[in-house]
């Protein structure tokens, strides 16, 4: 546990000192959302109708973009081998790196989301549920993405390949994330969707470190 915290802290301080990297993900998120009013027109009712979907899709894409680097630098400079040889099981190492990654990229997205919701004319009933849904959903995105990030290490065309592998697996999170927000806005059921998102989170928490570690092991061989 001590070493887990140690690894998370190290990744956090690496991220903070490299500052721009995680900032860029948020900026991408904002720009991607801002493109929609420019694309479909500024009419408030249209924007409000698509707001939750657009914000979720943009969040999916930003999470995916930032994941490419999750193991890449450690893989290139030899740190990954040493992490594999540390007394920490590789599964825990994956979990620690995902935790740090979510804190540096997932959380900023959640902070930025309400601002974007305002820009997209989302009705205020949806704000709280949007944040809750993102809180429950984005960790799953980081966890699932970590498996993909481990698999593409050392391959040609890493980034595009990662999106091909990971985006289809993000579909369930997208569907229930959007549906929860729309439910809250329209006054329908939304608790079930949030529960399912939480279920996804627990499920991926249990399974993905395992698959991610297997992915890292084959990359290191």
């Amino acid at each position, binding site marked *: 546990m001590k070493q887990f915290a140690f690894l998370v802290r190290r990744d956090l301080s690496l991220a903070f000192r490299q500052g721009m990297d995680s900032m860029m993900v948020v900026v991408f998120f904002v720009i991607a959302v801002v493109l929609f009013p420019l694309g479909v027109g500024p009419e408030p009712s249209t924007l409000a109708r698509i707001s939750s979907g657009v914000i979720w899709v943009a969040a999916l894409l930003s999470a995916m973009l930032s994941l490419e680097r999750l193991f890449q630098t450690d893989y290139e400079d030899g740190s990954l081998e040493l992490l594999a040889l540390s007394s920490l099981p590789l599964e825990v190492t994956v979990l620690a790196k995902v935790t740090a990654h979510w804190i540096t990229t997932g959380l900023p997205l959640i902070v930025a989301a309400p601002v974007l919701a305002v820009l997209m004319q989302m009705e205020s009933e949806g704000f709280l549920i949007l944040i809750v849904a993102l809180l429950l959903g984005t960790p799953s995105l980081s966890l699932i993405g970590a*498996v993909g990030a481990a*698999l593409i290490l*050392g391959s040609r065309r890493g980034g595009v390949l990662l999106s091909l592998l990971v985006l*289809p*697996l993000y*579909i*369930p999170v997208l569907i229930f994330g959007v549906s929860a927000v729309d439910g809250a806005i329209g006054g329908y059921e939304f608790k079930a969707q949030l529960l399912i998102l939480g279920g996804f989170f627990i499920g991926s928490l249990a399974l993905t470190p395992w698959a991610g570690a297997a992915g890292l092991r084959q990359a290191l061989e």
Partner: protein
Amino acid sequence: MADLHRFANPTRFLKLAGLIQPWALAVFLISATVGLYMAFFTAPADYQQGESARIMYVHVPASWMSMFCYTVMAVASAVSLIWKHPLADVSARATAPIGAAFTFLALATGSLWGKPMWGTWWVWDARLTSVLVLLFLHIGYMALQGAFDDRVRAAKASAILALVGFVNVPIIKFSVDWWNTLHQPASVVKMSGSSIHPSMLWPLLIMAIAFKAYYVWVLLVRMRQELVANKVRILRLKQVHGG
């Protein structure tokens, strides 16, 4: 030296493949002929959709095949990861393009069927959407297979991907069904089994058998090709390293 699977000549497999192949081809030709005959002559036209319902006899078996192929890939991947059997890896790799072809066919025929029914080429119907996602999964698998210079790494990485994808398939299916009931409950076919009339069920099943036999035949051809390609790579490595 018994552990050196990769250098072992899979003679027994090749013998078996040589025995099975002509039978698979024969089964395919016969069942495809019978299936087509039944689809066009003995099966009745649908009372609502008329003759266009005959597309069902390729569409539905093709979408069954797309799921079947992905399942085979996942099982073969598990075998290759756990028991490290080289043929498992070769069969998973050889299955991928066949699965992708059937998945594409399921989509294309679904679209051709949907046009007269819905008036558009594409509707976000639950079945079509799930099949579309399945196509993405097939393509992702093939892309990962092709992304490594080292064949062994490619095999391991894509085996893990196939298993992760396979675990996700029911979750994706569940999500898409849920999403679909929220937005539009229309569907061309509802395969609830009991409600379908035997005169329509038989051609479906026979076409499914034809597709399975086709799969076996092409799979064996592709596996043999992979095995020869392995031998070619070993010769090339010998040229480089003089081993």
